[in-house]
């Protein structure tokens, strides 16, 4: 993996500054809200990229960790009515617990088992939410969460800060020796074994890290919407996240975060097109993935900055 150079840091600072200052120039709660969702998706996409992008084990049920984090926040607020800030660390813990539950039996296996297991695990949790509606509120979900921070603008800045920290932490990990091992696993598991590396351990550990950040993002989302509902567990959420990573350029982490922000903005901007919105969105994605199989954001950034490195 490429080392971070000064130009990368400069680019990141400019982007974060634009994102942070945007609501001050266009003062509208709507924009602040959209940007908050953008940042949340950024956390989800970069956390997916860390595990699946580096190890090549596609996780088709990232919504499991997202939903687990969000519902943890929901339960803490509605049943135990604890200090809302407690929901962040608890959501991380619950999401990690779920990653161990699914990861242990499936990550030892090769092939598509892990992807399928994650897909079905998230679907099962969505069903369970409906079956145990007395506790989960069924289709309606849970209402009445307290906001973490009263001012939407300040909350947006907080979520953006979490995204920045997430991307920094995951990038540093990906560039460390640890990240090298994860990329080796993507390359050839048998060679890793021959090199004395406990492949299963590293796969499970990276899934735990990925799940922890996804759960954190889930709880942040819950405290933005002030409610949680079963669609959080849906396949649509997982697939949306995966598409964002592919558009960003798989394995780059920052690309996933930027693509998540841009695609979320694109979805919002297309609202004016009404029914045609999904058509345009899907067509754009298909064109990007067809003509740029390595993604858009990360390869483009590398190209633009090649001479400055």
């Amino acid at each position, binding site marked *: 993996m490429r080392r971070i150079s000064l130009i990368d840091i400069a680019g990141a600072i400019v982007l974060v500054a634009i994102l942070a200052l945007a609501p001050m120039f266009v003062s509208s709660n709507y924009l602040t809200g959209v940007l908050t969702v953008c940042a949340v998706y950024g956390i989800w996409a970069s956390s997916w990229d860390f595990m699946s992008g580096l190890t090549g084990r596609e996780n088709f049920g990232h919504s499991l960790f997202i939903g687990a984090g969000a519902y943890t926040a929901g339960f803490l607020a509605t049943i135990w009515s604890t200090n809302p800030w407690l929901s962040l660390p608890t959501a991380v813990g619950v999401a990690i617990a779920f990653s161990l539950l699914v990861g242990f039996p499936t990550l030892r296996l090769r092939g598509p088992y892990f992807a399928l297991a994650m897909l079905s695990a998230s679907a099962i949790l969505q069903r369970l939410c409906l079956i145990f509606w007395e506790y989960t509120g069924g289709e309606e979900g849970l209402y009445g969460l307290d906001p973490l921070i009263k001012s939407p603008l300040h909350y947006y800045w907080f979520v953006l800060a979490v995204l920045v920290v997430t991307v920094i932490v995951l990038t540093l990990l990906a560039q460390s*020796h640890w990240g*090298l*091992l994860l*990329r*080796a696993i993507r*390359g*050839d598991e*048998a*060679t*890793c*074994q*021959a*090199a*004395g*590396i*406990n*492949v299963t351990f590293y796969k499970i550990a990276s899934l735990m890290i990925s799940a922890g950040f996804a759960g954190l993002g889930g709880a942040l989302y819950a405290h933005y919407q002030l409610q949680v509902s079963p669609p959080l567990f849906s396949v649509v959420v997982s697939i949306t996240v995966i598409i964002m990573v592919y558009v960003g350029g798989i394995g780059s982490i920052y690309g996933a975060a930027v693509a998540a922000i841009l695609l979320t903005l694109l979805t919002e901007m297309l609202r004016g097109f009404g029914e045609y919105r999904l058509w345009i969105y899907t067509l754009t994605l298909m064109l990007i993935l067809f003509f740029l199989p390595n993604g858009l954001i990360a390869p483009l950034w590398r190209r633009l900055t090649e001479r400055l490195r």
Partner: protein
Amino acid sequence: MTDLLEVNGVTKRFGGLTAVKNATFTLKKGEFTGILGPNGAGKTTLFNILTGFMQPTTGTIHFNGELVRELAPYKIVNRGMARTFQLTRPFVGMNLLENVLVACMSPRASNDKDKEERASYLLAQVGLGGRDKEPVETLPYGDLRRLEIARALATRPDLLLLDEPFAGLGSGEIEQLAQLIRRLHREQNLTILLIEHKLREFMALVSRVIAMNFGEIIAVGPPEEIVKNEKVIEAYIGKTEDAHASA
């Protein structure tokens, strides 16, 4: 000298086919042994069993006095038995240094604090010095074999298993690689078990031969004796005309 590896009655069946039949042998510390046999004799299967990539149907394997059967391959590596693959399996998309670095991260190499320096040193040792940043994709076959050896050495093995290191190489490359292997054996007192089906390269290298045919060990002894052994000649050249006539 003590026995480093003790293989007892190892048999591997795939359905009706017996790939390895009742293999029994020992390796002493510091020994350079070769497994000889024509294609399909069960050599690679035996290697896969020793290194934990396959489980034997029956039989036991002791390494350094410890039963290693049913241990995961990476655990066996961390007990000091490293291998190379016949079809080299580098990590594509990584440079030479990174390829070796992965193995420097194994628990057995935990005493090597500066991983980069160690990996770079190992590359130099196998004759790939100064090429740390080169991508593996452009590497010729002979160099890939060297890379495999560097990766195996990174786990600080007591026993090194080389699976047909000369396959597909030109004679010049073979001579250089043989020199490297000989040097490792001599300078590091490394115990080596090498598979090969090419007689010539092989005989010049090893001090003891285990000859296999159809999954069975048919002869064990020094190379001079093995080349005269009737069963070995039969396996390689076919039966003599007399034998054909009487059969």
